[in-house]
């Protein structure tokens, strides 16, 4: 029996940028609630909210200054409860970011801790007289930070921070801190959240002589949190953000007793690289070195998100290549990545955007969409920090992109207005009216994906093709012993009928048309049915199966037994 998150499509949403219900120029929880019908129409299963807590907003809300309070611009607790209830009514779940590693330096805990070395919270953060400890820990935000230690004049000591200097790390060696953070989780789960994306989990503990990442103590703490969730909140999900190689990330699943989901970071830049190089190896290599994960767990995969296109998980030489290819203007570069949205990254080529989504939706893992990418929104690289990809959602060609009734000058960020990606050209309203829009295409893909839970839970096997520009793979359901495919909670009962589900995906990574000969003899006698149009293709025979693919084209085929004589499909299919 699989869990909901194994077959879900996630949608990452920035509350500030989605819809402004009260007209103050900034999106809010009530605004998001009013757009739930749209999200249900699109077919997403779970929303992931970027941080919604009290914060001075020096790091997009990841600098939390009060774990118990909703950011006032977003609304209040009642708005959060209402959002969760309305979403649940529509079969949509909600998880939210929770930063467990650090707080804002404005957090009352830190304000108290920095007073002196003897106060009640003196040990809630990591303090030191000098910068000598934890020398082996790398600096993550190389653009802005020189050291992981910053001197605090008030207390006369250095405090430890893995990210910005205004985000001191909590001291998890202090049992009070460890207990309090569990209480924080329970508080929000009691309110009804379906889980958390746990930000920056590898860094909870520090130990000298290590790189202070992925320490055993950190895993022990996650097991404790998981036990709490399993006991009191079954069905909720913990999604770890650990930007590491898959063989290290897999540790965060534990033996199925730590996080339910982890992001698979390295597969993302490699999808882009594969399309640029027109060959499959960047992808198949990383999937080949991705270990099996415990049953009941799932990868979270994505093309783009609110952060940069992370290039930490590629080699130096590949990073140079990606920078040269995708960040032609130096402003597009950030820390160790590329700060762009999907559509401009692929030069506005819809065929590439569709191909990349087809890969995303059919790779092992649960896909996570970034708000606005379903309509092909662009970015504004002239906005500072990560704001370039956090501009207002483009709802209509009306004033302020239909996002807010506030004065233009009041908006938290200007909507895009350029002739290619601006809201006059790219918006939900126009695309909903146009059946050939990318929005409708996306909705159709999500429908098809939902009919085939095998995309979420099936095995993944690459099919050998001589042509290196073609990537072919089979997703197939592991049949339980009674011969029936595993039923999936909440899925269409027709889709989980007892026949085994086998889906063959064939993708052309090249800008030129390509042929492919697929060794499909194992499925001899079956009929491939193209899933977007339900068109039956010729029967698989004893010879290699030949297909031709349009530039950046792809096929999703369901492999089915030929229909019995006289059935409607046989007559219609010829």
């Amino acid at each position, binding site marked *: 029996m699989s869990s909901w998150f194994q077959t879900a499509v996630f949608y990452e949403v920035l509350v500030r940028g989605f819809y402004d219900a009260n007209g103050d120029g900034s999106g809010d929880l009530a605004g998001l609630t009013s757009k739930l019908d749209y999200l249900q129409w699109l077919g997403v299963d779970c929303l992931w909210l970027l941080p919604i807590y009290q914060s001075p907003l020096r790091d997009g809300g990841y600098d939390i200054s009060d774990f118990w309070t909703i950011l006032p611009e977003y609304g209040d607790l009642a708005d959060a409860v209402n959002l969760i209830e309305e979403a649940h009514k529509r079969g949509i779940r909600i998880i939210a970011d929770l930063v467990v590693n650090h707080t804002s330096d404005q957090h009352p805990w830190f304000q108290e801790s920095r007073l002196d070395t003897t106060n009640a919270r003196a040990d809630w953060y990591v303090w030191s007289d000098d910068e000598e400890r934890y020398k082996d820990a790398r600096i993550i935000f190389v653009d802005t930070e020189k050291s992981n230690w910053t001197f605090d004049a008030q207390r006369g000591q250095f405090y430890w921070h893995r990210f910005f200097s205004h985000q001191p790390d909590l001291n998890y060696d202090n049992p009070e801190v460890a207990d309090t953070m569990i209480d924080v989780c329970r508080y929000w789960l009691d309110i009804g959240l379906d889980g958390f994306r746990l930000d920056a989990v590898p860094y909870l503990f520090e130990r000298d002589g290590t790189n202070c990442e992925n320490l055993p103590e950190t895993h022990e703490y996650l097991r404790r949190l998981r036990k709490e969730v399993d006991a009191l909140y079954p069905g909720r999900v913990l999604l770890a953000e650990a930007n590491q190689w898959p063989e290290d990330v897999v540790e965060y699943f534990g033996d199925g007793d730590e996080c339910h989901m982890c992001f698979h970071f390295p597969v993302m830049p490699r999808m882009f690289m594969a399309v640029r*190089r*027109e060959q499959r190896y960047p992808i198949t290599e990383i999937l080949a070195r991705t270990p099996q994960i415990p049953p009941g767990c799932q990868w979270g995969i994505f093309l783009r998100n609110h952060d940069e296109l992370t290039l930490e998980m590629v080699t130096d030489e590949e990073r140079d290549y990606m920078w040269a290819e995708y960040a032609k203007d130096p402003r597009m570069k950030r820390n160790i990545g590329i700060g762009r949205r999907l559509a401009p990254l692929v030069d506005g080529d819809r065929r590439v955007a569709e191909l990349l989504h087809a890969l995303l939706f059919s790779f092992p893992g649960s896909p996570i969409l970034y708000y606005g990418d379903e309509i092909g929104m662009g970015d504004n690289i002239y906005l500072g920090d990560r704001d370039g990809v956090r501009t207002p959602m483009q709802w209509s060609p009306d004033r302020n992109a239909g996002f807010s009734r506030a004065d233009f000058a009041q908006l938290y960020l200007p909507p895009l207005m350029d002739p290619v990606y601006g809201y006059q050209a790219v918006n939900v309203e126009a695309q909903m009216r146009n059946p050939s829009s990318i929005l409708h295409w996306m909705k159709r893909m999500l429908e098809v994906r939902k009919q085939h839970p095998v995309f979420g839970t099936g095995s993944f096997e690459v099919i050998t093709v*001589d042509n*290196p*520009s073609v990537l072919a793979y089979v997703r197939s359901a592991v049949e339980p012993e009674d011969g029936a495919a595993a039923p999936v909670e909440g899925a269409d009962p027709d889709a989980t009928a007892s026949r085994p589900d086998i889906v063959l995906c064939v993708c052309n990574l090249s800008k030129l048309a390509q042929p492919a000969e697929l060794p499909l*003899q194992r499925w001899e006698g079956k009929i491939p049915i193209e899933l977007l149009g339900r068109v039956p293709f010729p029967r698989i025979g004893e010879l290699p199966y030949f297909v031709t693919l349009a530039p950046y084209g792809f096929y999703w085929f369901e492999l089915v037994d030929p229909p019995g004589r006289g059935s409607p499909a046989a007559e219609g299919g010829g």
Partner: protein
Amino acid sequence: MLSDWPADLQAALPGYLAAQRWFSGAEPPPAEAVRTASSRRLWSDGHARELWQVLVGVGEAVYQLVLGVRPAGEPAEFLQGRDKAVLGSVEGVYVYDAVWDPELAKTLLEVISGGSQKADRSRPMGAEQSNSSLVFDDRLILKLFRRLRPGRNPDVEVTTALASAGFGHVAAPLVEWRDDEYDFAFGQQYLAGGTEGWALALTSLRDLYTGAAGAPAEAGGDFAAEAARLGRVTAEMHVALRDVFGQAQKGDAQRSWQAMVHGLPARLERAGPALEDAAGPLLERLSAVPDPGPAIRVHGDFHLGQVMRTDLGWYVLDFEGEPARPLEERLAPASPYKDVTGMLRSLHYASRHALVERAVDDWVEMLPAAEAWEAHNRQAFLDGYSSCPRIGELLPDPASSPAVMVGYELDKALYELEYERAHRPEWVSIPMDALERLVAGTS
């Protein structure tokens, strides 16, 4: 069940052989030159289905046939449209090439591996010059040698030795079938998901031909990273070959180099008088090389078609050496530069391959891009090669290195020219260009 191998089939052999791709010669050999050297039953179902190995001598040559036997009248779908695979009918049975029989192919694998290898599915791969290959379950590839030569098959010998020495870039050996005289078949791990280096290089080159490419490093399908990794693997292969097979005596290495250099003027003359005239300074330079460096067992026919890119990196295939050279020459120790230049030549071939079929105008326009691609990837390959920590031990001293490399590149280009003149005249311009470049000292 056949009591013995039916002598009646003898008459069908000349015609059957002539129809096989692995037979050297298009005409049926004279009947008196064809003899059945040995025959043995490998398997039988106790009734009429059987599997036989038959060795057939044709003059000096020995060929291996692996044949299936079925009762006459029992249909075999896999033989439809493959009349040439059927040897003939006799005693109420018919006899055919067993590689096409999905069931017998599996039986063959089981029999020759002594039961240690079993498979659910088999499929024949495209026919080759001297072998037939079968793929089992996309897991194991079995190469059935057709033209047998006494002694160890160099591919089996080298692959097995490298694998047991821990060199990870050859497909792991899984089955060896041989007797005291011949190697019959060799089964290796099937490199699922692999692509030949040649196909991968052409993928990178496509940008040139769509006219969209600028500098090769900026082209979408930049191959340099692959070329560098391939260079590294090549160097590691050489270190492993030396560790396994040792190094030739210094005098032998010197003599083999000198023999090659001495042969050059005559070959250059055959290539073209103008070339020979211009080659004087180069030949002097080659003769003056004081020490060509160590000589080791090398791959011998190293090019993009002999390497396979997989999810786990590059793999090296086919250690049989250049098929057109005699066996002893193929086994002779040589400088590792022989393989290095083989790959450099292959990069040149790849960059010119699609130009060959173009009109002259396109050719002129595309040539600079092709040259830039070649130079870019040549450098990347060499950088990767020299990044291997122990490779210095196997190379000549830095003063002689460039000349030794040029010598081997010249040797290879001359071999190519002779081959192209005999087989593919429209490709002659590729090695010819290289020769002109080498002689002019602009390579």
